[in-house]
């Protein structure tokens, strides 16, 4: 064994590592299609990157396949990333910074201001062509179409409503709530029902209602009571307004009276699990729970409007995620074309077929497919969701929304634990939020 042969072995090992790396790069480089095809009649390849549950993938893939079939010059390659929005945003940020982002993405509504204010999204307006905005729900389209710029196409509308356990209602002798938002329960009716539904002690306790103090799940109580979190132009906090305080105090009292699990209880058992195992009477949550709850077979459940406060005006937040084109895409025109297809009748119908994406943003599809959507519900109850789109409003998202929410939750968790009075928390919070909004 000479020293030479060992040296050769070591060098060739390293060389083979590097070389095989290079050769595999050669093949993947050409297939990712970073530059070819600009206007030359060659096929353009677009990368589309999303996060989604595994059961949603057939729907998204079906939509992309339909586009590819209809557009022989363009091919979209759909990539599903692991994890949730947090991981997705991390990865997109890295890729945009490196100048190598996917062309198309689907971005959670919460992250839209953050991305658009940093200039990380392409303005779609120059490539829109004959796009007819009047065909779409205004509440969905408006939030991305402002000041003459359009940074995203709405994917579908999610709103919130009240899921309730019908078996528990019957057992407690409570009449079932109406499915008309104009006849929604009042705060007092909610409290009364919750007190009747609450029974037992310890781990097997049955709760009447779940009060989630997270503003993204609680803002409708403030709205319908005449308050809110931020003012119209999002420059100042109104969480310390008397109407907002009153709603918060009401929510706190539901927790303190034992009708709702505390933030500590929900750490050990997620509330959707609590509802599915029949230990929670009422759960105010989003449309996104429908697929999971459709599998419940141990009890009857239904959907009703969210109880309203002093104004008597029903309110619910909407969550409209967006298809976007990331800054740095080399094919903005083709990508915008794809986005227009994604909100077309054909694509929206595919999403409905696969039971994903929420309520279609195209009014004609939403109307025509009412029968096929939310199959677990009666026709009357389906209207709870469709009617909710009309009355829904977007949350006042800001570019530093995550930080605002972190600060808010630190205070509101104390309210949930009963360690801080809701009114006092709102006063302290208003000062902190105002500082962050400057």
């Amino acid at each position: 064994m000479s020293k030479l042969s060992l040296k050769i072995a070591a060098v060739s090992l390293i060389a083979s590592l590097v070389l095989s790396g290079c050769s595999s790069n050669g093949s993947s480089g050409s297939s990712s299609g970073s530059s070819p095809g600009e206007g030359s009649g060659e096929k353009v390849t677009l990368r589309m990157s999303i996060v989604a549950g595994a059961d949603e993938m057939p729907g998204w893939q079906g939509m992309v396949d339909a586009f590819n079939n209809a557009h022989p010059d363009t091919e979209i390659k759909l990539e599903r990333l692991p994890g949730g929005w947090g991981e997705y945003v991390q990865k997109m940020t890295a890729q945009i910074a490196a100048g190598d982002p996917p062309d198309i993405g689907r971005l959670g509504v919460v992250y839209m201001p953050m991305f658009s204010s940093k200039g990380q999204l392409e303005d779609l307006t120059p490539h829109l062509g004959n796009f007819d905005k009047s065909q779409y729900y205004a509440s969905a389209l408006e939030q991305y179409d402002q000041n003459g710029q359009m940074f995203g196409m709405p994917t579908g509308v999610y709103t919130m409503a009240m899921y309730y356990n019908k078996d528990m209602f019957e057992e407690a002798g409570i009449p079932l709530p109406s499915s008309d938002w104009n006849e929604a329960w009042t705060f007092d009716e909610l409290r009364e029902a919750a007190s009747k539904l609450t029974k037992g002690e310890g781990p097997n306790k049955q709760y009447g209602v779940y009060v989630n103090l997270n503003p993204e799940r609680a803002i409708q109580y403030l709205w319908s009571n005449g308050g809110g979190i931020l003012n119209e132009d999002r420059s100042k906090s109104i969480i310390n307004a008397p109407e907002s305080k009153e709603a918060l105090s009401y929510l706190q009292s539901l927790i303190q009276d034992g009708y709702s699990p505390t933030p500590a209880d929900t750490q050990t058992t997620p509330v959707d699990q609590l509802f599915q195992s029949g230990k929670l009477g009422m759960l105010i949550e989003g449309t996104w729970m429908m697929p999971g709850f459709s599998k419940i077979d141990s009890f009857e459940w239904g959907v009703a409007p969210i109880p309203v406060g002093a104004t008597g005006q029903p309110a619910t937040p909407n969550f409209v995620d967006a298809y976007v084109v990331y800054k740095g895409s080399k094919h903005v025109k083709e990508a915008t074309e794809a986005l227009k297809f994604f909100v077309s009748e054909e694509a929206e119908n595919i999403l409905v077929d696969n039971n994903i994406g929420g309520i279609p943003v195209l009014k004609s599809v939403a109307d025509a497919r009412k029968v096929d959507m939310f199959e677990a519900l009666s026709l009357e109850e389906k209207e709870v969701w469709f009617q909710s789109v009309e009355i829904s409003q977007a949350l006042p998202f800001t570019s530093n929304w995550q930080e605002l929410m972190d600060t808010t939750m630190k205070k509101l968790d104390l309210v949930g634990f009963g360690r801080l009075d809701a009114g006092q928390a709102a006063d302290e919070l208003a000062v902190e939020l105002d500082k962050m909004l400057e």
Partner: protein
Amino acid sequence: MSSSRKFPLSTIPIYVLLVIGAGVMILPFLWMISTSLKGQGSMFDYPPRLIPRPVQWDNYYRAWTTLPVGLAYLNSLKIALLVTAGSLLTSSMAGYAFAKMKFLAKQPLFVVLLMTMMIPGQVTLIPMFMWFSQINWVDTHWPLILPPILSNAFGVFLLRQFMAAIPNELEDAGKIDGLNPWQSYWKIMLPNCKPALAALGIFTFMGNWNNFLTPLIYLNDQNKFTLPLIISSFKGLYTTDWPLLMAASCISLVPVLIVYLFAQRYFIEGITLSGLKG
């Protein structure tokens, strides 16, 4: 040798304590296996049930078929093995140079190397990504394999310390018999470093097997995903099928358990040697 010794009464409390400790350690593990066999929704039943009724073996079939778990296995194995082998080689060579050889600016170089350990990986993540995207290595496994092989400062440090403790006389004797530096590294140092190499190998393997962030940033194609990415793919955006997720986790654990059964001795040696836990 100890078979003839009597079982002293005084050890009973120790055994009781150890059994309790072992029970606490193994409970989450049993819980994972139990959950992987439960139906949706029965996971949070009270009182908790360790043996599910009915037992749903179907979860394992569903976990294996909904996502490319088998492929992820091979990807993870390939990356972890290549990185472990490669970084053992480079770290031991560099460690030998720093411990035994004389060259210009040796001390300053070693300090610079140690300083690289102080920079958190997140800071270099985006610059590295930009670099790899320029040579079109994004969405390949190379950014996950080459950097940890070529820049394992901790490994160099560990092996340098270990080699520095090996008496120079051993090497001197070799020199008298005509060994050049390469031969004395290969024939004298490496065989004497086996415990350190085993410890470093295990840490490197575990670290890469469990790595989540780097593969998340670099890989786009589901068929190239590693196990942590695939397991995380079982999480939905709003709701999670816990039994399915747990079944996938159990599947992914099998090779690690096998490695542990065979390499238990080295694990323990590695921990006592380096004062770290894996």
